[in-house]
């Protein structure tokens, strides 16, 4: 790659993008091949080597300590000293300086825990810039950002590029790639399959290069909405331990056969909403009706038994037992329901058989249902979770980012399954950061901001950009 350019790497899930970057960053050692910097071959033993050679990396997953301040997160590993002590004042000044120069506004003394995703992303970039990196690796930095934030990030990238920094940029969002990249490399199953010129290639062509086949897209196929209300939420509010409102006065209805999409920047109450609906988080005020039954006071288990399926936002934390075999994971959340259990006993055989079914139906790539969940790739784990939650004919599905981390092929399959179930009368609450997915699947979209519903839009006549500005509250000002 050339100095002072943005070089995009694209490829489907598991193509080896992150792995390649981790090698460049010294985290893994290559089996063969060489890395050259400024024409000089180097061997990188550790991230420290990479940092020393001016390589900085923003990882696909945040690499931050929640309990530290921004300052501590940024200077860690390259601390300025004053005598034996850490030079807090100096670090603070330098961080402010860099934030100002690249328009990355963060207060060095904030506790990281209190920051949202956008700020966290900025902290990650600050970390790299603070070390004076000349080569930046950004692994899917935009996955969690709204369009406006993406634009700001790109402005910053162009700024950096202007100063002669080289940037490796990884994203699944091909339009972003096309807008920011100077060069594009497509990789598949660990090898380079193509290089492309962003000025001449279209998103569609690029996608086909990635998967080697036609690109699916989410599309609503006519409305299946009925008049029967499946879920009715009224005046719902949730407060945290200190009594601050996390959700205030949320109200909506989902009919059978309807998909209600929730759009919003991460951290605006989506997680709290799903948890309140699932009974994981206590409700301060308001009622929840499933059909005609008031389930506000029900336990999570009872709600699940009543036919609510739940695809959690964070599959590792909430959706899976990584150290357990797949068939046990299939039981998770449905351990009281057939075919997994009979009375107080579990039915291992039936659970296994049903897991085989899910593996087949949802194309979970695994040699057997006895391997541990940790052995599966992220996308396959997600497919298992979705398959599990769609089992047993739920009447309501609460799905957070159901296709996050899933490759395009599987994504299409999941969309199809959701659509099919919707035709059968499934009510869906869909939360997604992928605005195309939201627009394509939902019958209605509500926008959540600071724990409130601020707008309801019709997916048929809204663009991602419009949604994005509603999500950030830009419309309020207007």
């Amino acid at each position, binding site marked *: 790659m050339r100095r002072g350019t943005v070089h995009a790497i694209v490829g489907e899930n598991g193509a080896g993008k*992150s792995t390649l970057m*981790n090698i460049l*960053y010294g*985290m*893994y050692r290559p089996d063969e091949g060489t890395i050259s910097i400024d024409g000089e071959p180097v061997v990188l033993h*550790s*991230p*420290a080597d*990479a*940092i020393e050679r001016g390589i900085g990396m923003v*990882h*696909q997953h*945040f*690499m*931050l*300590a*929640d*309990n*530290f301040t921004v300052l*501590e*997160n940024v*200077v*860690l*590993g*390259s*601390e300025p*000293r004053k005598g034996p*002590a*850490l030079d807090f004042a100096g670090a603070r000044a330098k961080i*402010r300086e860099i*934030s100002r120069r690249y328009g990355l*506004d963060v*207060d*060095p*003394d904030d506790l990281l825990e*209190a*920051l*949202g*995703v*956008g*700020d966290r992303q900025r902290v990650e970039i600050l970390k790299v810039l603070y070390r004076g990196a000349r080569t930046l690796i950004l692994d899917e930095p935009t996955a969690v950002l709204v369009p*406006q*934030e993406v634009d700001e990030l790109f402005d910053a990238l162009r700024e950096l590029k202007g100063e002669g920094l080289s940037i490796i940029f990884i994203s699944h969002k091909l339009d972003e790639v096309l807008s920011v990249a100077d060069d594009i490399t497509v990789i598949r199953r660990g090898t380079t399959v193509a290089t492309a010129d962003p000025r001449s290639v279209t998103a569609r062509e690029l996608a086909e290069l990635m998967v080697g086949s036609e690109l699916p897209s989410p599309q609503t196929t006519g409305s299946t909405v009925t008049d029967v209300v499946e879920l009715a939420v009224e005046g719902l509010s949730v407060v*945290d*331990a200190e009594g*601050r*409102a*996390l*959700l205030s006065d949320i109200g909506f209805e989902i009919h059978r056969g309807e998909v209600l999409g929730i759009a919003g*920047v*991460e*951290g*605006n109450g989506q*997680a*709290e909403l799903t948890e309140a609906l699932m009974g994981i988080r206590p409700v301060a005020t308001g009622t929840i009706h499933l059909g005609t039954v008031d389930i506000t006071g029900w336990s999570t288990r009872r709600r699940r038994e009543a036919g609510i399926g739940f695809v959690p936002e964070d599959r590792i934390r909430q959706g899976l037992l990584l150290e357990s075999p797949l068939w046990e994971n299939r039981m998770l959340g449905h351990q009281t329901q057939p075919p997994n259990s009979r009375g107080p006993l579990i039915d291992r055989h039936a659970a296994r058989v049903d897991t085989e079914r899910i593996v087949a139906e949802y194309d979970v790539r695994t040699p057997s249902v006895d391997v541990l969940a940790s052995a599966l790739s992220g996308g396959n784990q997600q497919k298992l979770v979705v398959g599990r939650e769609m089992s047993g004919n739920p009447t309501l599905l609460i799905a957070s980012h159901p296709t996050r981390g899933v490759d395009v092929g599987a994504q299409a399959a999941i969309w199809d399954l959701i659509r099919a179930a919707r035709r059968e009368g499934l009510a869906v609450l869909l939360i997604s950061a992928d605005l195309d997915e939201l627009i394509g699947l939902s019958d209605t979209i509500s926008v959540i*901001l*600071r*724990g409130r519903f601020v707008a309801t839009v019709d997916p048929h006549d809204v663009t991602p950009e419009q949604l994005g500005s509603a999500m*950030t*509250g830009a419309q309020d000002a207007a």
Partner: protein
Amino acid sequence: MTTQLQVPSPPPVGAVQEPTSRLARLATWQKLLMYGLAFLALLSLVRVVSGAAQLTSSGTAEAALIAAIPIGLAGLAGLWSERAGVVNIGLEGMMILGTFGAGWIGWQYGPWPGVVAAIGFGVFGGLIHAVATVTFGVDHIVSGVAINILGLGITQYLAGTFLTGTPGGGSKQSPPIANIGSVSVPGLPNALESIEDRQWFFVSDLAGIVRGLTTSVNYLTIIAIVLVIATFFVLWRTPFGLRLRSCGEAPYAAESLGVNVYLYKYVAVLISGALSGLGGAYLAIVAASNYRDGQTAGRGFIGLAAMIFGNWRPGGLAAGAGLFGYTDGLQLRDNTAVHALLLLAALLCLVGLVVLLIRRRWFGALLTAIFGAGALIWYLGTDTLPPQLTSATPYVTTLVVLALASQRLRMPKADGLIYRRGAGH
């Protein structure tokens, strides 16, 4: 997750925040000081009413200090290890190794070489723990339990081999170790003594406590207190400390920034071993003056409790060790003073009652009122407590305080988790 919004709009002016936070911190200090003084006033009141002079005497303060230091050192040892993400339940075993090291070398070559040997023995225990947990990724609790067994076995075995037939020693104890020496603040003790003897409300109590803490203070005591402060400075104010703590909070983030997590974990666990060993040395050299089999008596576990009590912070653990040391010293010194603690409990309930009534927490208020009344009736209706109950004071107090404080303790996020290089991606 909070609902905080990331509006990519006007930058909050960072500079404004700094003075506020510093002011806030100052205010906390003041608040703490005020709470402390208020508590002392209450204690003083109880002393005046009950006549239990030992509640705030210099002797009690001194006893509390001596009882608290080994526990505090064990807690500090736990703190270092857990701040780097390694749970150390093997503190007791490492402490036992320390007592033996101190006794075995101390009686032959003097107390200071004994201290060094104790630290060395503790480090040996730490090394086993580090190899097992850091290198081999064994469950931290398992390794700690094994070290407790090993520490006891090794010392008993070695004591049988090396101490049998020593002058005044035997397979269960070492010969006496020479005194390590102590200092007093010149002039102060005498001045304070006269004030303490007056038995004035509050003033005498304060004088007694200060006197107890400043009179013929052992060198190892001073070292231990310095270590608590130094721990704060090193862990929270230096690059080394930041890196070490990052291993306990987010090891993979640390790794991605070039921090050698294994190295820091090793260093932390070895320091943990050294501090445990020092705690053992304190027991053998200062609290007693020889090694004696069984001398640690579970203080390593209490140290662990003090660390959790103190929210994985040096100041907090010092407070936890101090509370335990105070109640333990008090119950050993004076039965009647423990009886007077019932009155203190009743008064504290009264304070709590007022607070709860103001906050309109009726149920809590009712419970507090019942407990307070119970304590008062018990106090008025008896002159002494059964000795078994007296002896239980430190344990009961710790449990009650923990149950009431209901503070949101927060352990390092990656504490106890197995770290493997490159596994975080």
